[in-house]
Each structure stands twice: as structure tokens, then as C-alpha cells.
């Protein structure tokens, strides 16, 4: 079953899964935008400009970071190679553009983040499926009965753990009762995702190591979890007067 899936969506076809997830995420999120005080049109524009900034920003920042390579072949700037991409730079560009657009359209930040949450949660499912298809984000070697054979060793099915965690997060959020305090929905997603990453990273076989075997991704996930809790508390207090 897994092998069939991996054959079907072998790279570069695994990117189809991300496109499908983005589309499904948009469709689901659109159904709930009114609940968060954001119109469908504003939401669609926010996602459109954000994605556009992600794609253009990621490529431009990659080119800026590798200027000698691009100066010798400027047309490579338009090449259809997804590998010529700085995903961190793209994310920063997307957040900046979404913030500017949101401010201009007077969309409150926390409401916008809440409206985006189902989109992000479905995208997380798509990312874990694309990891499974490409065999990236693989697990460490193990002899457990549910191990999968990947890269010539029996390994933890880390991509399936990731998939289950993202589906669980999506399910918990989707069936959560509406919260009158803007931002708490998004912060719950951020906390659940950080907690899942913190726990599941331990089964990964490709984690960058900080020192003495400590995984840097776990440290980052812990910091994001702590930040999510802190902001959750702050939002809870600052909006308690407005809550019904």
C-alpha cells in the first residue's frame, strides 16, 4: 500500500499532494471564515497574495543568496526548478505581504490567523503525505513490528506518525466549539503542532543535532510551544473583558 502510494507520487509528483492540500485547505477554511469575522473575498485575497509572495519571495531570496550562480545565467531565475527556492525566505515574504494586506484591508490580525488555521492544518496533512511519497523526513532505524523498509533499513514510519498527528490536530480543531476570543483557535493549532513536532522528532533519522545528541528541531518546537502557551494566556486575559 505504502509502496503503491510512493510509486504513484514519487518525486517530483509529490508536489501534487501539496497543491491538492492547499486547494482542500482553502475550500474548508472558506466555510468557516464568517465565524472568524473575515469575508470570503478578503480571505481568498489574503491567501492569494501570501502564496504569490511565498513563491516569488522564495525564488528571489534564493537568487540573492546565490548571486554568483544567477549572474552567470540570469534566465535561471525563471527556471521551473522547485529546488531553486529559499523556503524560509518565502515564508517571511508571505507573512510580510499578508500582514501588509491585512492592515490595508483592516482585517484584524488574530481574526485573520483564526480564519487561516484550517488552511494551515490541511496543508500540514499535505506536507506529511508529500514526505511519505518522497521518503524524506524519514525515521531512525528500529526493529519495532510496525517498522517500514525505507532507504535500505527498517525504520520508524515517521511520516505516518506525522500524518496521524496532523490529522488528529485537524480533527480536534474542526470539531472544536467556536471560541469568541480571536486568536485562541490559531494558538491552539500552533500549540498542538509544536507539541507533536517536539514528541515525534525523537523518531526521526535525519534530525539536525545541536549538541550531545540534542535535536535542534525539538528545541525550536519547545520554544514555539512555550510561546504559544504564553500568548494564549495573554490573549485569554486581554480579551476576557470582551468575551461573551
Amino acid at each position, binding site marked *: 500500500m505504502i509502496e503503491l502510494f510512493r510509486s504513484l507520487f514519487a518525486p517530483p509528483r509529490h508536489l501534487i499532494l501539496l497543491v491538492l492540500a492547499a486547494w482542500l485547505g482553502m475550500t474548508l477554511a472558506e466555510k468557516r471564515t464568517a465565524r472568524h469575522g473575515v469575508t470570503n473575498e478578503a480571505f481568498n485575497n489574503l491567501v492569494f497574495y501570501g502564496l504569490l509572495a511565498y513563491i516569488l519571495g522564495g525564488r528571489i531570496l534564493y537568487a540573492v543568496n546565490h548571486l554568483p550562480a544567477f549572474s552567470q545565467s540570469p534566465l535561471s531565475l525563471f527556471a521551473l526548478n522547485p529546488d531553486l527556492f529559499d523556503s524560509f525566505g518565502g515564508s517571511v515574504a508571505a507573512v510580510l505581504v499578508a500582514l501588509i494586506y491585512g492592515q490595508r484591508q483592516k482585517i484584524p490580525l488574530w481574526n485573520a490567523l483564526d480564519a487561516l488555521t484550517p488552511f494551515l492544518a490541511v496543508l500540514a496533512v499535505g506536507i506529511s503525505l508529500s514526505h511519505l511519497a518522497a521518503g524524506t523526513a524519514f525515521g531512525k532505524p528500529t526493529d519495532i513490528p510496525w517498522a517500514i523498509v525505507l532507504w535500505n533499513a527498517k525504520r520508524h514510519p515517521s511520516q505516518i506518525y506525522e500524518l496521524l498527528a496532523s490529522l488528529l490536530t485537524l480533527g480536534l480543531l474542526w470539531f472544536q466549539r467556536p471560541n469568541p476570543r480571536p486568536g485562541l483557535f490559531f494558538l491552539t493549532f500552533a500549540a498542538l503542532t509544536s507539541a507533536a513536532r517536539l514528541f515525534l522528532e525523537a523518531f526521526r533519522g*535525519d534530525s539536525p543535532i545541536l549538541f550531545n545528541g540534542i535535536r535542534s528541531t525539538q528545541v525550536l518546537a519547545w520554544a514555539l510551544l512555550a510561546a504559544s502557551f504564553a500568548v494564549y494566556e495573554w490573549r485569554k486575559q486581554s480579551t476576557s473583558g470582551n468575551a461573551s
Partner: protein
Amino acid sequence: MQPIQRRIFFILILVAGLAWIGISADPAGNAGAGGVPAPQAGFLAPDFTLKTPEGETFTLSKLQGKAVLINLWATWCPPCRAEMPAIQKLYDEYKDRGLVVLAVNSTVQDDPFAIAPFIEEYRLTFPILLDETGEVSQAYQLRSLPSSYFIRRDGIINEVVIGGPMSEALLRTRIEDILE
């Protein structure tokens, strides 16, 4: 949940998280370590010995100390054809700095008589190897053509690029990485 209960819950989760980071620390490092051969970044590149159409033999493991680009291709594959001029150009540019290009023709799924005209047409000067039994395609778990493997001087795969055509900038950045 009352605010005080919630805060205690958050603190407990964070303490448990810190403990988990310590418990799950892996002094052995990540999985690429251990030298398991696999066609994935971070792993030792699977070894092979193949012949060129002229009968010259190349063994990957004998190239340790050199940066190697393995490009799996076929004459009928349009992206393979499209990226060959850029590979040749960068081979000319970087071969003196220790770059070796091994263009492995997936002969098992190609027309052997089309290979020589292909080499002629693109004026390829790097070694063209014939994978007549599909041994390399199997070892590298080939699923799409072209597939390229950028191998560092220590024999570890630095990056895998599936599909193409690779642009000149992509090739240049990846080659610079493995020559470091």
C-alpha cells in the same frame, strides 16, 4: 478549566517537553551516519561498476576524494536532453577543481544504438556509462528520469534532484556545495 489549573497544565507540559528532549537525545547523531548506502541525501552513495561504450570501466568507490555528479538519463527523455548542454558546460568549468560527472544511461530502457549519436550531437566529453542490467537504476531506486545525485568528496550524497531539466544556476549551486 480554571486559569490556575490551565497554567499548571501548561507548565507541566513544558517540563515534560524538556524531559523528553533530554531522554530522546541521540548521541550517535542522525541516520545518515553509519554509512548505510542509500540513494538519499545524507547517506553513502551506493557503489557500482559500469562500462563506457568504449569499454572503459568506472567504479564509484574509487572516486572518493572527488566531487561526483551522477546523472541518470535516457536518449528518449526530453528533460534529459534539455539539461545535457548545461551539464557539459559546468563539467568543462569545474573538472579542474575535482568534479567528476558520471552520466549513467539507463540502457535497460533505452535504445543502445541511439546513445552514440546522442553523445555526438551534444558533444559530451564526460564518461557515459551503460547500465545494461538495470543494476544502478535499482540501487538508486530510479522512479523518474532524469535523476541527479550530487556526491561529496567523502562519498556521501549531498543532494538528490529528481526530474529536470536542471537549470545552470541549480547545477552551479549544487556543484559548488559538493566541491567545498
